[in-house]
């Protein structure tokens, strides 16, 4: 068997047998299951009470007498504030509000409650608002107009293509779910897989195995076999996560309901997802190999590697900004920047249409970076992998690289 394949097989089997790998692979679906379970329990706990809520009111302005049963609430009229306060203290009502004499001109409603709150409950506020508007408009406009004023729009957006036809992908939060989840998994897989490469090479360096290996294989065979073997293990991890997603979404649908039905997978997503996973992994892995070469210990290497692995998860830090301005020039730049491109492009695909030129530029830069990274890593490995116990200074590394 080719020596590169032997290293590939050894690294693949060695990685998937690691306790850390096994725990991580199954921990994510288990954690998701736990989160769904907790969500079910929480949604059961915070369901609105079934019994009717009694809200008192004092009509000092006059004319607010009808529409006193909105939803599961009952509005009870009191003649004076004192009578309403007594009823509140006796717990005959849950709260009360006063419509003052100058309400029409000032628009102020005074609400009284014994509960400590951050903001008034939205259900209560809506009930009071609808009670007021219904009474103000009663007999002046038709009932359907009153209903429309209370719920003036249900915004339905349709995305058209450049030719004016209805687009296949209609956007929305549902469209963001799969790219978002995949982006997150991609970021995790990139970080963990490149960590395995770093640990693998670092341990071989620490255990003084490198020289024995290099007496049998070339640096190129060693890096290629290792990177592909560990990458395949990383792919297995991602497959386990992706396969568990439909099952988890199915379970989750009972708590987040109809939202699941809005999930769409962009047509080009799967192809691009696989492409970016492979390219992103290769880039991070070859750079990890280079970092392992110049690091004295695995721990030190992990510290150095965090400089570029941070870029993989950085798009999530700016997720809210990304959601609002998905086509901002800054995101375009970072979609082409090789360290952030794999995850950022995945996220943007769910939010907006990423132009073909940006995808092409991003993939081209990634491929070039991988080639450059591989040459750099091979050079660093040849130069520094047999240097034990100390890390070379940056100036020294640059000088040696310049010498070729």
């Amino acid at each position, binding site marked *: *068997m080719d*020596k590169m394949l*032997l*290293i590939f097989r*050894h690294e693949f089997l*060695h990685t998937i047998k690691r306790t850390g790998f096994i725990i991580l692979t199954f921990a994510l679906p288990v954690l998701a299951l736990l989160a769904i379970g907790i969500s079910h329990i929480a949604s059961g706990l915070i369901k609105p009470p079934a019994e009717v809520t009694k809200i008192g009111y004092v009509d000092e302005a006059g004319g607010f007498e009808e529409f006193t049963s909105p939803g599961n609430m009952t509005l009870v009229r009191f003649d004076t504030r004192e009578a309403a306060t007594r009823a509140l203290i006796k717990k005959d009502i849950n709260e009360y509000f006063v419509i003052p004499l100058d309400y029409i001109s000032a628009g102020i409603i005074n609400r009284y409650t014994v509960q400590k709150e951050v903001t008034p409950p939205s259900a209560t506020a809506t009930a009071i608002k609808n009670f007021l508007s219904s009474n103000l408009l009663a007999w002046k406009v038709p009932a359907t107009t009153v209903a429309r004023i209370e719920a003036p729009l249900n915004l339905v957006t349709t995305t058209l293509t450049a030719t004016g036809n209805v687009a296949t992908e209609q956007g929305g939060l549902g469209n963001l779910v799969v790219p978002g989840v995949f982006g997150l998994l991609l970021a995790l897989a990139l970080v963990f897989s490149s960590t395995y490469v770093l640990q693998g090479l670092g*341990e071989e360096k620490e*255990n*003084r*195995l490198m*020289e*024995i*290996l*290099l*007496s*049998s*294989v*070339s640096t190129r*065979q060693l890096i290629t076999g290792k990177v592909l073997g560990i990458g395949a293990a990383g792919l297995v991890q991602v497959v386990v996560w992706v396969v568990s997603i439909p099952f988890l979404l199915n379970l989750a649908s009972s708590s987040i309901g109809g939202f699941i039905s809005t999930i769409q997978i962009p047509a080009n997503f799967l192809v691009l997802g696989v492409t970016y996973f492979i390219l992103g992994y290769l880039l991070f892995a070859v750079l990890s190999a280079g970092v392992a070469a110049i690091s004295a210990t695995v721990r030190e290497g992990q510290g150095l590697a965090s400089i570029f692995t941070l870029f993989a998860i950085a798009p999530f830090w700016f997720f809210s900004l990304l959601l609002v301005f998905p086509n901002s020039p800054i995101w375009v730049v970072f979609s082409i920047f090789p360290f952030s491109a794999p995850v950022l492009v995945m996220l943007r695909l769910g939010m907006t249409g990423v132009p073909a030129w940006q995808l092409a530029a991003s993939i081209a830069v990634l491929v070039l970076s991988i080639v450059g990274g591989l040459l750099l890593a091979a050079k660093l490995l*040849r130069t520094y992998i*047999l240097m*034990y116990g100390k890390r070379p200074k940056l100036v020294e590394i640059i000088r040696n690289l310049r010498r070729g």
Partner: protein
Amino acid sequence: MPAVEVNHIVKSYADKAVVNDLSFSVAQGEIFGLIGPNGAGKTTTIRMMMDIIKPDSGDVTILGEKLSEASKNKLGYLPEERGLYRKLTAIDSIIYLASLKGMDRHSVEEKADELLNQTGMLPHKGKKIEELSRGMGQIIQFIVTIIHNPELVILDEPFAGLDPVNTELLKRMVADLRNHGKAVILSTHQMNEVEELCDRILMINHGRSVLYGKLPEIQSKYRSNSVLLEFEGKLEEVPGVTEKRTHKGYVELVLDGKTTPQQILERLVSTGITINRFEVATPSLNEIFLKVVGKNHG
């Protein structure tokens, strides 16, 4: 065809020559000692021979050709800085590293059992490397080095850290390699090991060759023209002896340049003393090492 031919190799780091115009050859069926003080350039020379690092100039031929992936399978290398996968068992370590030398699993298992048995390590084959003592780990590394029946074996400080029993065991195995026609390069600081095992030596200092050739010839070259004598009786003045040095249990007679040891022996017999030991003084390799390295030091 020599097993190794090194021609004028040079390697510098930060403008300092670590190996400087070094040339030598190693024949098949010989044990070749590569010796020198710390930092002399031995390990760098070996790494260039193994194509782990490239020489700045000069070339190396192994078994008649430039080192290639295929010819790497004919080499066994035990580096000074060595280790194994701590979480793997001894047998799995041997199988993986031997497979990288082109052996199939069945052949490895068969040969591994033979070597493990020969070294008394068979009961430990299923243990993880981290569970073995340092010496045991070193024997596993030695097995990994020779299991694929290499034509050339390079051993960098192979006996360091081993107990006397295991040292003798490995010495016998190294001598066996020579007896089977293999070329062995032995790099060590232990001059007694070199005297015991090596046919020829190369001593390097500051990256340059300072001694190269057959061991007896080198010792002869550094001979001090004196004889060692253990005797009973009274030793009078002997013509041809310029100085008499008394050591514990024997005396060293320094001869003038014209008198041979044979002539001195005849003259001693004629004095009537009882001679228990008469030996032409030959300097040990350690003494030659100290003399040469001391002269070149700094």
